[in-house]
């Protein structure tokens, strides 16, 4: 029963705002640095303070991703597919929130934002379907000249550092994260610096999708601060530089020290287009197993 002011009128309810935190190891910590940064809408209005992750947070996220890797890679492809599909289900239930946040972040009109949210949800469904098919498409048996069974199959490369595109803060975000984790990699993702709030909302979706903690870790903050430690980290196996901008070449050079697999940014990328295997293949290793055949 609402309380009444002395004049008898109903008091306006004070909304409960969300603290926008990081997503590391399945938990939602603040940055260990205690920092945050203001996030503004497309027209300059203050929306929220987002966590400003530190290099230490990035290292913690890598440790969480490494810990989660064997378990996630060891899940059946069917199971991973169901979990990705579950993420689509959870997003569908939060359409209104995603549409509003996207609209605020990019200034897109409602129909346009709706379309992008739909595309982002559908992208989870798309990759959910790839989990148990990519190995058949990319692997196979090799007809070697001798009495051997010889097969090649793709395996996840490990921990992948992902710089989400600075534009397309939702569709681009899902488009870079889903293919990485679909095949059993674990990810440390740095959200769009200017528009990080959809990534925070996505973390909440993932946390309720049966995705094991640590499989996807999402950091908000300064890309220029978080990308170099990821590029240089010896326990990161690959980098997606989609959101690297001007620093892509420097990051690639840093990644060379530990021979990371690097997906370079494509300036002509169209996030709406059918991605096929273009973002799956770079984060897979081909393993070939031989065995003699005989009696």
């Amino acid at each position, binding site marked *: 029963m609402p309380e009444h002011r002395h004049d008898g009128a109903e008091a306006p309810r004070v909304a409960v705002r969300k603290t926008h935190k990081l997503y590391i190891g399945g938990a939602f910590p603040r940055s260990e640095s205690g920092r945050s940064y203001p996030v503004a809408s497309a027209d300059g209005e203050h929306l929220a303070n987002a966590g400003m992750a530190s290099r230490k947070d990035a290292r913690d996220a890598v440790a969480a991703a490494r810990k989660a890797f064997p378990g996630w890679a060891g899940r059946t492809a069917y199971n991973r597919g169901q979990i990705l599909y579950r993420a689509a289900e959870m997003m569908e239930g939060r359409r209104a929130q995603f549409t509003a946040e996207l609209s605020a972040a990019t200034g897109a009109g409602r129909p346009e934002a709706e379309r992008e949210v739909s595309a982002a949800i559908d992208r989870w469904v798309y990759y959910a379907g790839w989990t148990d098919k990519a190995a058949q498409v990319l692997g196979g048996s090799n007809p070697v*000249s001798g009495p051997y069974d010889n097969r090649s199959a793709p395996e996840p490369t490990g921990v992948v550092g992902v710089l989400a595109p600075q534009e397309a803060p939702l569709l681009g975000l899902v488009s870079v994260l889903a293919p990485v984790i679909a095949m059993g990699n674990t990810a440390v993702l740095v959200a769009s610096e200017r528009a990080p709030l959809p990534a925070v909302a996505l973390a909440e979706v993932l946390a309720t999708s049966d995705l094991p903690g640590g499989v996807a870790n999402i950091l908000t903050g300064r890309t220029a601060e978080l990308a170099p430690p990821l590029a240089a980290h010896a326990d990161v196996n690959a980098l997606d530089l989609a959101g690297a901008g001007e620093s892509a070449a420097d990051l690639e050079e840093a990644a060379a020290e530990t021979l990371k697999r690097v997906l370079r940014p494509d300036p002509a990328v169209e996030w709406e287009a059918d991605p096929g295997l273009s973002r799956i293949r770079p984060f897979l290793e081909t393993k070939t*197993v031989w065995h*003699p055949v005989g009696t």
Partner: protein
Amino acid sequence: MSSEDRPPAPEGGNGAGGADGAPGDGGASAAGGGVSATGGGTSMSTSRKGSRLDGQPLEYAPAPESRSVVRLREAYDPFIDGEFAPAKSGEHLTTANPADEEPLAQVAVCGEADVDRAMAAARRAYDTVWRDLPGAERGKYLFRIARILQERAREIAVLETLDNGKPIKETRDFDVPMAAAHFFYHAGWADKLAYAGMGPDPRPVGVCAQVVPWNFPLLMLAWKIAPALAAGNTAVLKPAETTPLSALLFAEVCQEAELPPGVVNIVTGDGETGRLLVSHPGADKVAFTGSTEVGRGIARTLAGTGKRLTLELGGKGANIVYDDAALDQAVEGVVNGVFFNQGHVCCAGSRLLVQESVAEEFLDRLRARMALLRLGDPLDKNTDIGAVNSAAQLERIRALAETGRAEGAEAWSPPCPLPERGHWFPPTVFTGVTQAHRVAREEIFGPVLSVLTFRTPEEAVAKANNTPYGLSAGVWTEKGSRMLWTAERLRAGVVWSNTFNRFDPASPFGGYKESGYGREGGRHGLEAYLA
């Protein structure tokens, strides 16, 4: 096998390990430590049945392959635009036979102007001839090359052994036939690229700058040039400083095949020549096989250029022997795994992980088998272990082996007289090795095996994966489910189960982690050369 096929490559695995629930008695081999494999292929064994029945080893008479089949020139020019012409640099190096340190020939050290000229020739050939040649016709050139390599097999094998120091048994039965097979395999891809899984209309990348190492000089050339040409690219290749001769002979093969000028160019030289080549602005794609250190440098150089890069680098392969393995076959595989090609193999099984319960018995058998290895004249057809390729490499092997002793591991080598001249290192096994020892962590690239033990499969996998490398691994067990469980968890690009060091043009090869990226061979290997 008919003469159409490359020689068989028999080995120690008997194939019995594939059946789940097979009796795991580990006693599948004949008692008495007899060697179960026969020679040929990559196997180092030769039949020695009854050789020690009375404690008197039968002596082998020398069986040297004649070197008269090879006609060495005094000096070799680089091969650019279809012709051998003097290098503008005017510099030369001497390549020598590592088995006796006798000079073999003078070879050009190509400088900037030479690399420029080679890259320009490759570009011209790409733009005017090769790119637009119908795939079926491109393929026919590769078929021709494969056939000429087969026809001149004896000559090439002897030349390779002279320049490299590896046993003639290996060049004759492995390096040369496998190189021919790579061209034959890729020839057939040239008009079928649309079916390679890279999309309906795959295009060549352009001009490829390729640098290969000294351990398999001709074979590594084949791994680089065959897929590049099949996919419609042209190539400039630099052979290793210490083993340039087979690449220059290959250039003659290209002439004989009437390959259009500029499609293949061979620039010889040292590390600086290689650096000029891989950093050349005219290269669309760079492919390198060699050390991880140099690979890192190339990756740094190409950062931000948008150029394609594949790297096949170092390794520290683990060979896991479970207690139910067929022990003699495993011994044979471990010996082949680390002593094949004097251990100058990036995918060598240089770490033995043997289950504690059988470790003692296994090591006894291993030592007995190592005592039968014949080290000496690489041209002798009975030689198992040839010369180390260079004085510098020998020094590296010695220095790392010394750290093994200094860090407390115990070294053992069979009684093994070393020739007085040339570069030699005896087959060596280190026991009492921990994961922290340098001999367990660093690539030695020599005939040195480090032995560690384990109790559980989980421990075996954890130890095997405890390395920044990830090129190869081996697993020996008669239990199929355990083999598959282990193979699934090994973070390595190639897993040999109940066998080791098998190679085939149809089988993709390449590493995880700091062993590099990209694959060579098979459908997967084409990806590096298609856009």
